């Protein structure tokens, strides 16, 4: 049987059991991890802190400088260090210190508990100083973390549903199949339409920079030739939802004189509409995937800011007491 190292419990104080890898275990999210074990622990911690503060507040007013203030402050500081260790665990793949899901579960619940303990620690005394800045940063880290929890819990399922249970690779393959079909259909039609369809395919746009990904708008364009003045006067316009292409094909369809020509255009119209839906799905998928990662880019810098502010706060308290 696998044994765990005796060294690690020091760094993983909340590990009560084996690493959480049992063959009998079914999927268990970080939120439900071991029947909300860390949630229960966090609630108990907060209740304990609240009750002690209530009792103590009869003796002396709440302040960071009382014995209880120091105790709560120390607990909060230690918790913050422990929470930051999650980043270390995430990157140490050979670590015997429990599963990353367990760590994340503890990280989430204790992260919320820190809010309560630190608020009790400061005794609701806020001002324009370095101490309050540490508190605000902690608040922001917590909020961004909660946003992350929401994102992790909700988006993966949402992404599967909106992709209709197929993978992104499958959708991309479907897209190229549609493009091939469109090219095949239009090859029997006149050259103007061919270049129109070709332009629409060439200028179909997925993803892009960070902002484009997060906004999730279809930024596809199309080149509209100027029949009178020639190529230099062609315009590039938005082809969001393939609407320009569809509109143009519909116009041609309305003006068609031959049944076979109209039938081809009808097929082409259907392909273009299918493609519009598919591009929409892919765009949404890219957006959700982007959002799934974006919050971390807020959480991490704030977290480092918090650690710095915490060090300054502690030094300031002890040096200028």
């Amino acid at each position, binding site marked *: 049987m*696998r*044994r*765990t*190292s005796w060294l690690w419990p020091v760094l993983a104080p909340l590990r009560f059991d084996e*690493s*959480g*890898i049992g*063959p*009998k*275990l*079914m*999927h*268990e*999210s*970080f939120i439900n*991890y071991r029947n909300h074990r860390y949630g229960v622990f966090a609630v108990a911690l907060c209740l304990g802190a609240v009750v002690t503060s209530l009792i103590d507040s009869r003796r002396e007013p709440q302040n960071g400088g009382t014995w209880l203030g120091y105790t709560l402050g120390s607990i909060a500081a230690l918790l913050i260090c422990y929470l930051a260790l999650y980043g270390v665990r*995430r990157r140490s*793949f*050979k*670590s*015997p*210190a*429990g*599963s*990353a*899901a367990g*760590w*994340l579960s503890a990280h989430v619940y204790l992260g919320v508990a820190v809010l309560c303990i630190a608020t009790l620690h400061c005794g609701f005394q806020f001002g324009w100083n370095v101490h309050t800045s540490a508190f605000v940063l902690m608040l922001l880290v917590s909020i961004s973390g909660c946003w992350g929890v929401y994102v*992790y819990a909700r*988006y*993966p*399922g949402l992404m*599967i549903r909106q992709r209709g*249970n197929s*993978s992104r*690779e499958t959708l991309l*393959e479907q897209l*190229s*199949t549609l493009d*091939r079909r469109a090219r095949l259909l239009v090859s029997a039609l006149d050259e103007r339409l061919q270049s129109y369809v070709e332009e629409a395919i060439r200028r179909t746009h997925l993803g892009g920079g960070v902002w484009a990904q997060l906004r999730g708008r279809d930024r596809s364009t199309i080149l509209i030739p100027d029949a009178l003045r020639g190529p230099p006067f062609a315009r590039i316009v938005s082809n969001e939802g393939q609407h320009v292409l569809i509109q143009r094909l519909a116009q041609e369809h309305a003006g068609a004189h031959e049944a076979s020509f109209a039938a081809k255009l009808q097929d082409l119209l259907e392909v273009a509409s299918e493609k519009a839906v598919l591009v929409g799905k892919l765009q949404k998928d890219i957006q959700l*995937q982007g959002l*799934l990662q974006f919050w971390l880019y807020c959480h991490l810098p704030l977290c480092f800011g918090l650690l710095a502010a915490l060090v300054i706060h502690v030094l300031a308290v002890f040096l200028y007491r």
Partner: protein
Amino acid sequence: MPDLEFDVAILGAGPAGLSAAARAAQRKLSHIVLEAGARHANTIQQYQRRKHVMSEPGLLPLRSDIAFAAGRREAVLQGWEDGIRKTNAQIRYQAEVTAISGAKGAFRLALKDGDALRAGHVIMALGVQGNPRRLEVPGGELSCVQTALESADAYLRETIIVVGAGDAAIENALALAVQNRVILVNRGADFPRAKDSNVTRLTRALDAGRLECSYRAAVKLISAAAAESAAPYQVVLGSPEGERTVDCHRVIARLGAIAPRRFVESIGVRFLDDRTDAIPDLSPQYESSVPGLFIIGALAGCPLIKQAMNQGYEVIEHLSGNPIQPADHPVLEAKLRPLLGGREVAATLDLIQDRVPTFAGLKALAMRELVLASKIVTPRKGRRIFARGDYSSSVFHVLQGQVQLEADAGEPMLLRAGQLFGEMSLISGRPHEIGAVAGPECMLLETPHGTIKKLARTEASVRSYIDRVFVVRALRLLLLPRARAETIHALAVRAQIHSISAGDTLFEQGDPIDRLYLLRSGSVTLSRPTRSGDGPVAYCAAGSFVDVAGCVPGARSRTVTARATVAADALSIDFESFSELLSSDEALQRKVQVEQEQQAAAYARMKAQPEAGDVLSFLMSHGVGEATNVLVIDEQLCIGCDQCEKACAHTHEGVSRLNRRAGPSFYSLHLPTSCRHCEHPHCMRDCPPNAIHRLPDGEVFIDDTCIGCGNCEESCPYGVIQMAEVPERVGIVQRLLGRRPAEAAKTAVKCDMCKDLNAGPACVSACPTGAAIRIHAEDVVALARTRASAVR
């Protein structure tokens, strides 16, 4: 003109043939090597460029006048070319032998080009690859037609026609399609011979338009193209739609090979049986059933280069009247030392055969091979050889002393010299059902599963003996732990063994209930037909009774269909004998009742939840039925962070053994491409250096004796083994000092379940959201049910 005469004619210029020729030249025997191809060592010439050729087995000394050491393909081939020159070995290329007649002292060999020659003795060193089938069409002999592909990178922006429907054709076509236009020509409508993973890759590439495929098509004609055309050659392809002409640069025909066996048999050589991998009946000096005709190398069952070269040397020494001990003699002597006691090696091998009935019918050569692959162990009294629940990859025979087998119920069994144990795990591929403890002065022969399975395939006597032992032990262990030996033996005689392949049925709904089935290996699903096809209601793994719930008193016909999910083996006894036993044995009654209750409840639960049946069908159709540990990702939890792959690469020299995105999904369950540690690992079936092992916890891993032959990669139906260059790790400081990592040879890499990490598989423990888990096939029903209730 009279035929040329030689003392020895050697067929095939591979390592075995070359070594024999070099020795013959040294011994001043007149000799000739007849090689059908245009170069020496065709098989190795076809290896990819710069491939590392290993010189396994390391223990065995090389006995040859031609040098050979592990190294790059080019260096090895050059070494042999030098050897041919130095020793003055006589080789005639492009000389395919079509018939051999005559007898010892006066063989007559007819060549394809019409020549003939005479030889006193014939040595066949043909290998097993055979001659590649050629395109038998006009123009098939043109230089643009090739039967092998050395490197796909050598061609750029060409039009290439690949003919064939096997794995080789698909792999070549896919590799070439990266930078060329490729047309795959398939005579049939699909690819029944190819591996599933290859078909999937091909389908994907075809859908994406990366290459073309012509079905029910054939090459009709190849000719040089007109001067102004885009490519130098023209190929006419015929298909049901009609003929079309394609300009192309080359045609690669991967049509398989003509196995040499038929030719060898036509001369009168007897094979041990009819299986495709059977070996010829040979004497200890490699002489076949035709006196004067010797067979060495891969065709004689020795696929390793060094062994083949040694055999070439030994045969010539034997022919020149110098009887020498085989090269493996010192190795065997060292292995057998505890048992020798002043005896000769050959006598000791005979002694083992006398004592151990499993090996009684073996030929001397097979016995040597067996002992070479095995080891002798002498555990102290009271030492646990394996525990109940351990996986193992060995079978044991007691050579001396005693061994005690401990089951949960019933008396412990005492085994004496000659008896075998570990056979249930061998057959089922599952953990041991009983533990084994060494008795006083115990000496055991430990043989790897792969070796014994290969032996059981080729030797009917070994197969039937192991089966007999299995039946008796299985009946005792699983049915009648307290019964008398006579009762069990009487029942064993009436037991039958049924082998069914994946997808076949053991019995169908409505069949009469006439036998009780016990699954020996593989797994089956029990299903009831529904409006939308088969609805699975239960899953049975090896070691369980199939549909006992249906065998209630008064029931006449089956209410379910039992279908194998993977190749399965079942043992059955007739229902009357079983009913008789049942009425007289209370313990058995209780056991059957418990099983009936569990199965009946499981049927009902699954029936009430048809989605769970769908999930179960999905998992089974992707081979989870034979998995002992399979990675399953819950897509509802997966955030696509790829921590699993990163963790895998990080803990395995930078090469990830899992591909998260690849693999099928259903009901938000995703089966990524990653090893499943099968009950009967396909990869272990044919590993020349026996480098693939199974640990007691079930992990299947490849050790560093891998020779990079790629057999395991080819055998794995799930495409989870890759051939990779695992680079040497050099620290930053050493890099600054100018040290560079040594060039690595390509070896097979696969998931080893992070056996060296205390925390278990890194892919699972690194998953931050709990999306990745590893489960055993036994848990699939539970997984299917939770999934069906989780996703609505």
